[in-house]
């Protein structure tokens, strides 16, 4: 499992709708800010990249020192972004695919308003389990 990993789902309006620190390293108080900042800045690159490729999985589109940002772009332009320090591309890809599936299930929930924050604890638990499994 990765030491540091910050996972975020960003809606098509660039609003973060889900975030989780899924690394093994005990979370530092200030890490959230830095990770958020890095992921936010990476949106600039995603924005450039998204329309030039048809691939959903954009691996390592941005680097920040030792950290790497990988992104999975969904059809409705929701972006699953992962800041990680591991190099396990296959694992990351599987992680994204599974989370994608989870997210779709959430979308199907009639009580979930698309584009709003995902507050489901079930979703959170599942994502963390997936992170343990793949990252």
């Amino acid at each position: 499992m990765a030491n540091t990993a910050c996972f975020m789902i960003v809606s098509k309006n660039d609003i973060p709708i889900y975030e989780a620190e899924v690394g093994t390293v005990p979370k530092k108080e200030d890490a959230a800010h830095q990770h958020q900042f890095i992921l936010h800045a990476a949106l600039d690159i995603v924005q450039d990249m998204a329309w030039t490729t048809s691939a959903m999985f954009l691996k390592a589109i941005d680097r920040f020192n030792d950290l790497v940002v990988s992104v999975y772009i969904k059809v409705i332009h929701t972006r699953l972004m992962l800041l990680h320090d591991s190099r396990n591309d296959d694992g990351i890809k599987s992680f994204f695919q599974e989370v994608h599936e989870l997210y779709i299930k959430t979308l199907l929930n009639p009580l979930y308003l698309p584009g709003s924050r995902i507050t489901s604890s079930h979703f959170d638990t599942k994502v963390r389990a997936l992170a343990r499994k793949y990252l």
Partner: protein
Amino acid sequence: MASFLPQFQSIKTTFDHVVLAVEDVSDLWPMVKKGFEERLPFKRAFLNNKTRNPVLVDELPAEFILTTDARLRSRFPQEQSLFWFREPYATIVLVTCEDLDEFKNILKPRLKLIVQNDEREWFIVFVSKAPAHNDQATKMAKKVYAKLEVDFSSKKRERCCKLDINAPDANFWDDLETKIMECIRNTLDRRIQFYEEEIRKLSEQRFMPVWNFCNFFILKESLAFMFEIAHLHEDALREYDELELCYLETVNMVGKQREFGGVEQGDDQATLLGPARKPLTQIVHDDSFREFEFGSIYLPVKQRGYSFIISFSKALTLHESMLPFCMREVWVITACLALIDATASHYKDGLAAPDVEKEFYRVQGEIYTLCRTKFMRLGYLIGYGSDIERSPVNSASLSMLPWPKPAVWPSLPSNASSEVLAKEKMILQDSPRPKHFGIQRKPLPLEPSVLLREANRRRASLSAGNMSELFDGRPNANDSSGPLSPLPKVNSVSMSRTFSSPGNFEGSIDRPMRLAEIYVAAEHALRNTISDVKLWESLSSIEEFEQKYLDLSKGAANNYHRSWWKRHGVVLDGEIAAVYHKHENYDFAANLYEKVCALYAGEGWENLLAEVLPNLAECQKIQNDQAGYLSSCVRLLSLDKGLFLTKERQAFQSEVVRLAHSEMEHPVPLDVSSLITFSGNQGPLLELCDGDPGTLSVTLWSEFPDDITLESLSLTLTATNNTDEGAKAIKSTEAIVLRPGRNIITLPLPPQKPGSYVLGVLTGQIGQLRFRSHSFSKGGPADSDDFLSYEKPTRPILKVANPRSLVDLAAAVSSALLMNESQWVGIIVRPLNYSLKGAVLHIDAGPGLRIEERHHFEIEKHEVGTQNMTNLDNPPENLSPVSTGVKQLTLEDGKIKLPDWTSNITSVLWIPLRAVSDGLAKGTPAGTVVPQRQSVVDGLRTIALKLDFGVSHNQTFEKTIAVHFTDPFHVSIRVADKCNDGTLLLQVILQSQVKASLAISDAWLDLQDGFAHAGKGDGRPASSFFPLIVSPKSKAGILFSIYLAEAPAKDEAKELQPVSILNIKYTISGSRNLGAHTPVAEELTGPDNDKAEYLTFRSELVLQRPVLDPCLAVGFLSLPSSGLRVGQLVTMKWRVERLKALEEKVASDNLDEVLYEVNINPENWMIAGRKRGYVSLSTKQGSRIEISILCLPLVAGYVRPPQLGLPNVDEANISCNPPGPHLVCVLPPPLSSSYCVPA
């Protein structure tokens, strides 16, 4: 060969174009120089690239240099081959000769000598100086030239051309150019081949120990440079690429790590571009050096430059221990700056395609950022850390970047104690700026680990030390400055255990360095490392440092903005703002901060927003931008609660409240949609009837951390069905205190139009400040257009029903009540799903009707089953539910208040009323047609009712109720028999007209004059008959025996008693629920007080004396036997016969005119002919006449036939046959034949 490196650089600077040698044999150059140089640079050149494909070069600069020039002379052969690219690409031999002999003897051998060197590409330009008019000279020149061609040109190649100075031929220049091109092309091809061969050879030896990267590098670089000279940029780039790759491989090859260069003064400066513009210094790695130069292709250079910096920086890391302190950082900074300088000066806007341009700026931005990061690191190391904003971007860039790892951390120079003192002072003075709103947040780190520890750990001389001692030397270590955040607890514990031995701090060398000492040591070390004066200057003082820092930030931000990487750009704007902020340039700072906030807020990254927004708020506050400050405070409050402490949030709120209550210069409505949200209550919506006011209950969610007082509050209601009308506001009257979280408030709601309503906008005032909120529900997404489609349909909160009847008033009984008696009139009050609480009924009795005000009104619950259960024989007391729930009410001022318990049930209000009718009832002879309608109309009375009800008596219901009153009996009489003794049996037939049983206890007849009672003479029938019970709607008869008395004297008697009066004493037992009933007692004395209950009914009867002297007889003649049919005319015939001769009126002609009239019911009959007329009848007895009238029956059935009357004759004198009414049968009309179907 490495020694050639410096030379190489200067050569490259000098020869950055194609060189063409001019061998001026006959001193002609000054003469033709101008013409030659005019052709430069060559416009169209076809050159072969590395793969031998022709490439068109648009502009090829070149220079003609005489072979006698110093630049082409005195070169060592070795140099020549190595720097072959600078050698002439063509040799042009300029000759002239006017004499064949001279040519043969002198010129030709000389030329042979010149051109014998095969390696050179050459051709001869023969210049003819012969004037045009001198044929002799021209001819001579031609001859010489021909000779020249024969000697030097071959079939393969033309090597000669001729320039006529006096008559220049246009073709000559083209010819010359072609020849030059040919030479250049050939030379180039050959040199490429040579270089490739050499490079290949070197590559093969690559893994041999003698191999020298420098040689390889020079060759490769020369080749690349040659391509560049020839303007074959792509090839050049490819070569550079390969070279870089190869270089990095070499650098990283483990076995090859020898002495790493860079220890000499000046090596720290990287000059990647533009050698011609700057004095050259280089990084020497082992035995290589690296340099780019390009003329015009900026972007690829830039990208390559950037990636080179990154990779070389990595390489430097590997060798960091050997290099001077911070060599790597310094190198990166200078490299970046050089790259930026070089490219920026070349690049001009709009030169390239937009996406290339974008990319260019992006890379430029990246370079700036990199440079900025390294610069901050250096700044931090020498103690400017407190001037670096601890923002996420700086924290992320610096705290993840490891410290420099020199073999030995620089130690403090011996004479630096004063500097240390200064730094100490600086550290002491430096207290972090208190954040606005008293926000206390752990500052973000700018260092990967504590510098103090890192530096001391890397000091070779420091063998052991008590770590806690490290911190002791520094006052306020834990709270005064962020970078010194205490070590993780685990570490400090373990360390204090490990290094617990006290002592050995005496020697200054062994003592751990204090922070100030580290700063000073780093500064000294850097001074040694940095050779660039400018860079050192910018690190020399805080002001300079900040200036440079600002420049770099600005550069990065601008370039990112241009490249449309807005997030990168805006973030750096935030850094610039921080500097301005610090320097109290609040205007700029606020502008920039606003940009940052807008970005984060727009994209909902609240964590990041929470970092910047307080700064913006502070700037706005200082600038006295009240509106902006307010909205910032509101935004701060609306951020996620976890981002700030409650105390901080309370500070935000108190600011808002303070401002709201102060006199604002330009009060602006404040949007608090994110703070105060509202929705209708759970549960069913409020339903109101048309015209009703109500109370609306609304849930308000307050996100304020404390209670907040709203001076006023109003909500708009928007009709969903009618968008034309604006929203209506409903207001609360008093101030409302909102608690944090959920509040339920109620608002008075004036009557609204029918329709359903949703909540619109919440507005209100906090102090003087108006605010508004648009959001309906909590936790919804920010108001962005994209979410409109997702927005939950707002639930209607209020429904006002269309107008409908809310109550119904009806009479309780349909049957008639007793006339002239006080009767209960029941009014059924039925609310229709509407409360009648507090309803008031106005009662207005119409003419002929009087309310018995002495009595109480009664009200009871209306039971539908009552009527069915009614048994008329039972006394009404048993039925009347007095005991179960009759309540008595009093009429006040014509109004009655309905009790509350009746508000939701159907009730009956009993009103005591008396219908007044003057005159007596009239009896009729039995058998005569009584016009029923007339009597009904006579007995009809109306009550006008008006009910005021509703929440605030806003509803009104008006109804007029008709009540029917009647006499208890209808009386008819007939003479039942005429006895021989002259007694008449008078039958009085009583028909009950009420739905109640009547008990007649006594009846008597007051006879009119001319009649007298037979028998006892008291006018009463046998008393044993009584009481006589008459059931509802049934008949009873009473016989009176009377006889004809002598008529009294006419003058008195007739006036005395013209009619007979029938008196009936009776009691009535009926239910008021059904109809007539016992009159309302004035005093309820009890049911057994019979006397009080006796009622008297009087009816007028007219007795007629019998027909004693008939004069005329009228007989109805029989009808035709065929019967009557509807629609068929029939002749009705009557015979009038005189029974007695008319004596009194004797007419001369013995004829009397008799008036007749036919009475018909116009519904049944139609008369064809005269209805009324005179007929002549003889006055003699026995005279007779027939009267025929043509009639048309209109209705089938048994109908009364027309009757003939003689109005002029007293009825007593007419004898009728048949005497009473009879009926005839009228058949329906025959079927119309036209409808018949033939059989």
